[in-house]
Structures are given as structure tokens and as C-alpha cells.
């Protein structure tokens, strides 16, 4: 399998919020949003990126697409490092992003048909019949061609999602990044969008990066999964392996935290205490130690490395092998 996109030791830092007394401390302080992220997205596969709000998953997606300047590390697309503006230009042509809020990511004043064909205009792709192309794209995501004359506010949530899928597919990208593709959708229609994404992936061989905090969804749509906590990857591996045998205590907690739609499986204990710490006050040692049931002195002092704990499965925990649920 060939790696379509790789990120190696990626860092993203932003300047600290401005303080009125800033002149007292010369040199700009920075906060690390992402630290030392390495991941690979293979062609024709789906990678699920999981994390709670504030874990940096959306920043990572933006960094991969060159929408967020990186402060360290390297991103390669098709084995070509993205260091020049020209490199990014080719990246933009072959990648697409579906943003979290479909209605907000569509222009309220433009008809659907025009929005769908805008990528062709921007990238100067010759398009003989704009209307026919719009109809073709709508058909591909299972929407009637008559929708091309509507405005975004006239669509339902599920329809708007489909329009966003259609627009993302317009230039036949090789990588599609979907940020919370089912947020705000009813359970009875979320399957439709996920089935559609999978079907398109199988037909066109594009790679999918799905960003979400919805674990059951990741379990059923992705081949690989990467779990983030405070801007670091804390566990990665094949989805089956990670769900069957999570090695990092945070992953174990996430899986155990999901409310069960079955009163016979009610849990009496609380899987995880406390809240995700502020990124401004990143804990010393292992970032997770203050919420971890198993934390030892070693965890409070030394940050663990991401290391292979079983075939293809990596975890950032000192005690990954010895922990039990």
C-alpha cells in the first residue's frame, strides 16, 4: 500500500494571547497546539481521527491542508515534501475538505448549482456545460437535479451534507477530509452519509480522513484510528485491534464512557474524572497523568514516547503492556 500523505514530527505553535504587560517579557511566548504528530494516510483507506474538543484534531486537519502554518516537522503528499507554494497548489487540487457545519460552509447567497461548480472555475478546469456538471454531481450523491436552483437555507441538514460531499468531490480529489461528517444529524440519516462516503471511496479509490469524537462511528467506518489528547497522538493502530484491545488508559476510558442504549448494561461507576486540562497549562510528564487511574511517579515526571505495543499498534504510555481495564 502506498502512503498518500505522511506527516512526520509535526508541530504547530501559536503565539500566546497578548498580555497588556507584554513589553516586560521580550520575545514572544508560544503555546504548542500540536506536538510531534506523525501519521500516514494510505490511498483507498479511511483513517479516523478521534479526540475531545480542544485536543487539536481540527488544527491537525488544517495543518495537513496547508491552512495552518506549521512550526516544525514535515508533511509529504505523494512523497513530495510540501515546502513550496507550488507544492501546496498541487495539494489543493487533489484534496478536499468537508467542514463541520454544512449550512455555514455553503454561501447563503449562491444557488447550489453555482456553488457546486465553483471549484472548476477557481482551478480553471474547462467545463462545457455548467448546469449539466452540477446535475451530474448532485446525482452522484443521490440528490435530484432540481436542487441546483435552491439556496442553502431551503435544504434539510442531510441534504446540505450531501451537497457538501458533492462539492468536495467536484475535482475528483485523492484525499477527502471530513470534519464531524454526521454532527447534528439524526441517527436515522447519519448512516446514509457514512454509506455514501464509503461507496464513493470504494468507487474512486480516494483516501478519507474522518475527524470525530463519535467512537462507535469510527469503529464502523475507518480502517485505522488515531486518538489525540492535548495535541498529541496517544494511540494509533488498526481500528479492530485498538477497539478490541486498547492499550492507552485514555482510549480505554473513551470506549467505556460511551452511554449504552441498553438499560441492562447501565454502568454504575464513572470511567473518567476531571476535565481535559487547558492547553495553556500542559501538565508535566505524561499529559494524561492527572486524570489517569494508573498514574505513577514516573508518569508525573517523564513524558512517555509513542511506541509500538503490538503489531501496528502504537501507544504513548509507560505502562501500556501491564495495564488491565
Amino acid at each position: 500500500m502506498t502512503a498518500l500523505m505522511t506527516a512526520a514530527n509535526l508541530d504547530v505553535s501559536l503565539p500566546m494571547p497578548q498580555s497588556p504587560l507584554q513589553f516586560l517579557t521580550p520575545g514572544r511566548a508560544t503555546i504548542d497546539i500540536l506536538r510531534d504528530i506523525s501519521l500516514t494516510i494510505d490511498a483507498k483507506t479511511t483513517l479516523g481521527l478521534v479526540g475531545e474538543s480542544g485536543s487539536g484534531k481540527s488544527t491537525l486537519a488544517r495543518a495537513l491542508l496547508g491552512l495552518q502554518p506549521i512550526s516544525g516537522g514535515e508533511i509529504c503528499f505523494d512523497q513530495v515534501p510540501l515546502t513550496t507554494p507550488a507544492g501546496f497548489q498541487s495539494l489543493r487540487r487533489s484534496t478536499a475538505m468537508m467542514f463541520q457545519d454544512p449550512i455555514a460552509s455553503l454561501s447563503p447567497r449562491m444557488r447550489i448549482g453555482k456553488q457546486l461548480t465553483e471549484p472548476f472555475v477557481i482551478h480553471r478546469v474547462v467545463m462545457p456545460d455548467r448546469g449539466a456538471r452540477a446535475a451530474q454531481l448532485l446525482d452522484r450523491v443521490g440528490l435530484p437535479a432540481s436542487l441546483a436552483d435552491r439556496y442553502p437555507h431551503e435544504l434539510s441538514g442531510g441534504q446540505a451534507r450531501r451537497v457538501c460531499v458533492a462539492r468536495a468531490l467536484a475535482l475528483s480529489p485523492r484525499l477527502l477530509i471530513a470534519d464531524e461528517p454526521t454532527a447534528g444529524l439524526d441517527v436515522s440519516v447519519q448512516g446514509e452519509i457514512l454509506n455514501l462516503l464509503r461507496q464513493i471511496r470504494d468507487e474512486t479509490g480516494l483516501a478519507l480522513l474522518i475527524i470525530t469524537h463519535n467512537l462507535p462511528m469510527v469503529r464502523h467506518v475507518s480502517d485505522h484510528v488515531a486518538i489525540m489528547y492535548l495535541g498529541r497522538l496517544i494511540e494509533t493502530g488498526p481500528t479492530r485491534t485498538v477497539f478490541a484491545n486498547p492499550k492507552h488508559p485514555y482510549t480505554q476510558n473513551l470506549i467505556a464512557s460511551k452511554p449504552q442504549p441498553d438499560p441492562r448494561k447501565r454502568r454504575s461507576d464513572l470511567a473518567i474524572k476531571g476535565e481535559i486540562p487547558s492547553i495553556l497549562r500542559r501538565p508535566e510528564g505524561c499529559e494524561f497523568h492527572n486524570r489517569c487511574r494508573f498514574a505513577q511517579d514516573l508518569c508525573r515526571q517523564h513524558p512517555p514516547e509513542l511506541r509500538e505495543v503490538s503489531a501496528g499498534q502504537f501507544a504513548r504510555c509507560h505502562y501500556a503492556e501491564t495495564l488491565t481495564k
Partner: protein
Amino acid sequence: MSTPLFEIDKLSLQYHTNGGAFHALRDVSLTARRGEVIGIVGESGSGKSTLVSAMIGLLSANAYITNGSVKINDTDLLTLSERKRRRFRGHDIAVIFQDPMTAFNPVLPLGAQLIDFQFHRRGVSKRDKRQHAIDTLTHVGIAAADKIMAKYVHELSGGMRQRAAIAAALVMTPDVLIADEPTTALDVTMEAQIIHLLRQLSHDHDGTIIVVTHHLGVIGELCDRVYVMYAGQVVEEGPVDAIYHTPGHPYTTALIDCDLVHLDETPRTLPTIPGRVPDLAPPPAGCAFANRCEKAQTRCFASAPPRVQIAKEHAAWCFRVPGHEVAQ
């Protein structure tokens, strides 16, 4: 059986729109007894938000109640004057709103608002009200509550905000506590903590808690009895175990099947309910779910299905409840 603390009887409500009357609620009946946790589950367009607004009498100007009653301790809130109804709100019935960020006033400190919410309590000093607010915040698991009192909502984290919103609803110790999508805005780990908190509250709260959500997991973890809503109607009601394990209505079955948490193996295509919720202006003549139902027959489109009693306290509105088929 004890008498119901809170009772909605055959409530029907229409929104008058340019497109005609939109039948948002049709013959909705619901009872809640002291000590019970009731779940109302439904997808968007099911009318659950309208029902919450009707329960507390905060309907929009174009909403008209055409029939029914909403009673707390045998007082019908719908026949009261606005002035009298206001006395019930907060004191007898309170809501934990979905978005705590917009539930609070952003330009007042949290403490001032929690004190103001106690305006019903005549003859209590401000100092005591302040202490009561601090106690309530501590009760919902906020450490250093006296410091939090001076903060503004935007200074709190998401989990803290939700806890503060719960405290705001509890501050007058209402008999009926309504939680409207209490965990929708939260992450998985915070969601688990809030569910845990609500479950604790249900033990030491001497009233009833009504949880309104689209999330089956939340209902499964919290509730004793469940009402399933679809297109403005209750389609099934029953004890939580019966709803999840022996559902009578095809919509309930389909809804539970769509929840991916259940699936152990990944199927080729993920389960969905094809089709859309019907337009309710005017509502369909027969069963509202018929156009999406696999088991639908001609009669399902022609006439409204009857209430079929499946077991004690378990009923579904369907011609074809397994084991209880209504003869043609």
C-alpha cells in the same frame, strides 16, 4: 399506583404559518409520578422541543393550543393567567437548557443570576440566597463554588457551564425538572459525568425528572419510563427495558437498530431509516410513519392506528405490534 405529579392529557398544538396550520403536537399524553425519571426520545421534527415549550408555557406567538391540558399537582397550567403561571415556573417546574452558554446572561456574574432566580422566596435575606446558591453549586459537583459565583459564563469550561445550568434549574428545588438535551453539547467523557450527576440527583430529588433527547444512550442510562415521539405524536410508551428489548412500534425498532453502538460486526452498509418525516401541514391521514415503514399495509395509510396495550404500562400506536396484531 400513586397519583401523577405531572400529567399532560391529549395535548394538541398548531403553529399558524403562511403555509397553513402546522400540527406540531397531536394528542400527546404523558404522566410522571414522584421519584420517576421519564425519557422523551425523538429525532428532529418529532415535536419534542415544542412539547418542552408547552410544558413550561413558553410558546412562540404563532403557537395555538387546540386541545388538552398540562397539569402539575392537578393545577392546569394552560388555564392560568400569565401572571399566575409565572409563579409556577422555577418553583414547581424548571428546565435545564441545552446550551448553557445562551441560558445565562453573558454580562452578569453567575452568582448574581443564581440569586435573582430565587426571587420567589419572599422574606429570605440576600445573604441566605447567596449561601443557597453556593450550596446548590457544590451539590452539582462544582468545587470552590464561592469563587465561581463571581465568574461570567464565558470564563467556565463546557462541563462547568453545564453543571451551573443544572444548578440554576435546581436552585428553587422544583417538583418537575426538565432536562432538554442535557449532554448534546458535551464531549464523551463530560457526557458520562453529567449522566452520572443526573442519576445522583434523581436519587435525592423528591420530584420527577424528564429527560428530553434524541440520544438513545442517554435514555438507556438514566430513565425509568420512555415515550417515543415521531412527527408530533407519541408512538410508543413503556418501561425502559421493554422499549429497548421488546419494542412494539416499527419506528422504535428502526431507531434502536440505527444506533451504531449496538453493532459488534461492521455490516456492508450501515443501517438507516429511508425516507423523510412527513409534512405536518396538514398531517397524513393514517400512521405518520407509514411512508418509511417496512411493514406498512394499505390500512396504515388510510386510518390512524389504535393504541395497543402490550403489557402493563407498555403501549404502542400501531396496527401490527408483534403478537398483538389488530384484525383487518
